[in-house]
C-alpha cells in the first residue's frame, strides 16, 4: 500500500516534470509571437511585456485544462486577446484615474524598418507607407484591429482567426475587408 503510494507520488512528480518541460517549450516557442501581437495592439512595450507575462501565467495555471482541441498558439492568443480586452475595459472604467500611457506615437512606431540594403529613398517611402497603415489601424475598432493584426502581422489563416476570436469566418472576412478598405483609403488608393 505504502509502495503503491510512493509509486503514485513518483508518477505524479514525473508527470508534473513532463508538463513543466512541455509548458517551458511552449513558452519558448510562442512568447515572441504573443508579445508581438500585444505590442502591435497596444504600441506600448512595457504594457505588452506585462500582458505577455500575465498571458503565460494564466496559461500555466490552466495548462492542465488545455485539452489540445486547438493549437497551443490559438489557445495562447485567445488568452492574450482577452487580457487585452480586460485591460482596456479597466482603463475605461477607471477614466477618473490619472492613468499614464506609454504608447508611442505613430511616427515613432513607423521608425522601425527591417535593416536591409535598400536605398534611403526606398526606406523613406516604406516608412511613409507604414505610418499610413498605422494611422488606419488606429482608426479601426478593437475587433477589426485584432482581426487585421492576426491576419497581416501574425499571418494566421481565417479559420484560425475565427477560432481565436470566437467569430465566424464570415464575420472575420467582413472585418478584414473593412479594415483593408480603411488602409486603402489611408494610402490614397480609394477607387
Amino acid at each position, binding site marked *: 500500500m505504502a509502495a503503491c503510494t510512493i509509486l503514485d507520488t513518483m508518477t505524479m512528480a514525473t508527470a508534473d516534470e513532463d508538463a513543466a518541460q512541455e509548458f517551458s517549450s511552449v513558452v519558448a516557442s510562442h512568447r515572441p509571437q504573443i508579445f*508581438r501581437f500585444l505590442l502591435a495592439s497596444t504600441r506600448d512595450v512595457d504594457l505588452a511585456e506585462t500582458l505577455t507575462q500575465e498571458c503565460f501565467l494564466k496559461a500555466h495555471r490552466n495548462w492542465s485544462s488545455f485539452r489540445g482541441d486547438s493549437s497551443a498558439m490559438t489557445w495562447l492568443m485567445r488568452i492574450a486577446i482577452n487580457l487585452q480586452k480586460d485591460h482596456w475595459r479597466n482603463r475605461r472604467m477607471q477614466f477618473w484615474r490619472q492613468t499614464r500611457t506609454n504608447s508611442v506615437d505613430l511616427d515613432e512606431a513607423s521608425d522601425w524598418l527591417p535593416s536591409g540594403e535598400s536605398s534611403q529613398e526606398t526606406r523613406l517611402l516604406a516608412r511613409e507607407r507604414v505610418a499610413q497603415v498605422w494611422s488606419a489601424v488606429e482608426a479601426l475598432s478593437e475587433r477589426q484591429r485584432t482581426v487585421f493584426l492576426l491576419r497581416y*502581422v501574425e499571418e494566421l489563416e481565417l479559420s484560425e482567426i475565427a477560432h481565436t476570436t470566437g467569430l465566424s469566418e464570415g464575420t472575420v472576412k467582413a472585418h478584414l475587408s473593412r479594415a483593408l478598405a480603411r488602409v486603402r483609403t489611408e494610402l490614397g488608393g480609394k477607387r
Partner: protein
Amino acid sequence: MTWKTKWTTRTEEPAEIEAVDPALKQALGDFKASVRAWSDAAHHRPHTAQSIVVHRSWQLAAGWSLAAVLLTGTMSGGFYEHHQRVVAAHIAAVQKAEQGRQAAAQRALDQAQQEEDMLASVDTDVSREVPSAMEPLAQLTDEGESK
C-alpha cells in the same frame, strides 16, 4: 436573404482586395516587417527593473480629504475650546458680580439693622433722663408724694 448574409456577401474577399491592389500589398508587407523589427528589438532589449509609478488619484483625493477633515477638526476644536473658555469666563464674571451684589446688599442690611438698634437705644436713654432745668420741680413732686 437575411441582413447578415447580405452584409457578408456584399463585402469583398480580403484576398481579392490584396490581389488587385499591389500598393496595398506592398504597404501591408512593409507594415508587417516594421512591426516584426520593432518587436524583435523590444524583445531583445536589456531588461532593467524599474519601479512602476502608479498615480492613484483616488488615494490622493482620500489623503487630501483626510487632511482637510483633520485640519477642520483641529481648527473647530480650537475654536470650540476658545469659545468654551470665553463662556466660562463670562459665567464666572457674572457669578462674581452676583456674589458682590449679594454681599453689598447684606452689608447694607446689617448697617441698617445696626442703625435701627442704635436709634432705639438712644430713644430709651433719652426718655429716662430729666433735663436739669426741671430738677427742682421733680424734687418737690417727690417730697409731696412722700408726705
